[in-house]
């Protein structure tokens, strides 16, 4: 639908809605820059005066934030790469091959995206313990795969189906076999999409709390969400450090989302809208 250009009213509404939506995060950012007397000022001190970076310093120096950040990065990169490695071939097979069982398998892929994590937590806990992967980063990566791999197949299949069939047929006429068509023609064309899909899986792992909280008891193995959750609730919450850590954890995710939103939206809406 062609958009009718908006008037002043539209702008006013857009600015208002943006302000309301941005407020919780903006408030968190402002609080992270306040000293404790300001955080606990009554009535509220709305702007940080003076601005302080002490919580950012504390979270790094006293709470070993870098370790948690690195753990998060390792788990997330591992999840992203493994998901794509597992998902790319089936995605291609789904878009370009006919084979018995394809429909059933595809339905399974769609269904599996929606399964709750809670169903997996007890069996995974027992399983990871049995194979000695509890309290290890690879163990958590394995636990994330059932949630990232199906959606990877799903997204990637949509990117493959955007490639004009003629391109691949031309390559076959030129003597490429099916695998060469995949590796030399189709794969290079979906690489940007594939990177987006890997980052989508990366971001799932980056923010995940339930499994990380339960499968990583040792401090030196924990991820950023676990650290942040531990700031909450013991006697009193350390809001300053909590929010400094929160801002730092959100920035990379936010940047990736803003840059890649069109890929994410295309992948997701293809699921909801196609047809």
């Amino acid at each position: 639908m062609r958009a009718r250009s908006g008037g002043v009213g539209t702008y006013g509404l857009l600015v208002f809605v943006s302000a309301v939506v941005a407020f919780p995060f903006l408030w968190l950012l402002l609080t992270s820059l306040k000293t404790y007397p300001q955080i606990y000022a009554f009535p509220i001190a709305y702007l940080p005066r003076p601005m302080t970076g002490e919580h950012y310093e504390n979270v790094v120096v006293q709470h070993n934030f870098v370790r948690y950040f690195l753990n998060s990065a390792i788990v997330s990169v591992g999840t992203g790469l493994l998901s794509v490695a597992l998902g790319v071939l089936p995605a291609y097979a789904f878009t370009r091959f006919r084979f018995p069982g394809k429909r059933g398998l595809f339905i399974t892929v769609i269904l599996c995206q929606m399964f709750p994590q809670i169903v997996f937590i007890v069996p995974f806990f027992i399983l990871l313990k049995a194979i000695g992967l509890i309290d290890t980063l690879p163990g958590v990566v394995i636990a994330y795969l059932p949630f990232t791999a199906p959606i990877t197949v799903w997204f990637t299949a949509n990117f493959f189906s955007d490639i004009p069939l003629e391109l691949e047929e031309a390559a076959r006429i030129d003597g490429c076999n099916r695998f060469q068509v995949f590796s030399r023609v189709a794969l290079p064309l979906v690489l940007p999409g594939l990177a987006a899909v890997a980052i989508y899986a990366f971001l799932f792992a980056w923010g995940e709390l339930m499994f990380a909280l339960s499968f990583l008891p040792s401090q030196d193995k924990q991820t950023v969400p676990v650290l942040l959750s531990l700031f909450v609730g013991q006697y009193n919450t350390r809001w300053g450090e909590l929010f400094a850590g929160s801002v730092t954890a959100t920035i990379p995710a936010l940047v990736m989302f803003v840059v890649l939103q069109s890929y994410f939206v295309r992948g997701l809406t293809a699921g909801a809208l196609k047809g």
Partner: protein
Amino acid sequence: MRSPAYAEKTRGWRPEWSTAYVMVLPFVLVLAGLIAYPIAWNIAISLRPEGGRLLDNYRQILSDPLFAYVTGNTLMWTAGSVTLQFLAGLGIALLLNRGAKGRAVFRAIILVLPWATPDIVAAVAWKWLYNELYGVFNDLLLRFHLIGYPIAWLGDPYLARLSVINANTWKGFSLSAMFYLAALQGVPDEITEAARVDGAGRWSTFRYVLLPYLWPTIVVTVVLTIIFTINYFPLIYIMTGGGPAEATETYVTWAYRLGFTFLDFSKSATVSTLTFLIILAFASYYTWQFTKRQEAA
């Protein structure tokens, strides 16, 4: 990849099948090993407590008064979040669909920011907004004399439910808005033009032209939101921990507490299996709708 010679001799077996099966095999193993097997195991764990009889867990859970209470909570949490996310999502999609300079910026703030914020960060940000003494909500309400004393948002059963639903609406509406916006952009110009030429006003254009067009997307999005909301754990876990006194406990937070606070894996698996059955029903409906539309296309 050359198909093996025997494959060509087998009647009905086509060479491309072999290639396809080789391509999907590792993934199928993951599906079997990391999805089907754990789910089956979870069901097995739930069926019999240690030293108990078959289905003891189910008998105990289903007759526990807490089960009915948590069911009510889960219903309120889901109905509230889904309704508000639908309304906010659709309204904001309609707003963003109007042409305006600087749309990219508004989109980045309205659609991307809540979506990109990690769950835990959204949870602590809202927990702080609702803080009784130092939270913004109480401060604003006091400043404008709308309340006489600070409200314990997360300390009262009804307010706590409202508060987590409100926070969840913020976190989740952007996904719905994105689906609706994408659908709106697919509405052919002719039909809205035709409505306008016929003298339809804004409301009747929306009601009789856009809404029917959007309906399939709405159904699918709402079902998806129901599933995500029932499954959603971190917000409640961090904001209220299921409290006060279980007022915001849903199936998922209850199953988590049974397993990892009380270390009763068998009971936890029972609650999560029941949750799984509910999700499976919705997910099957979604998948059915979805494949139906794909095949129609």
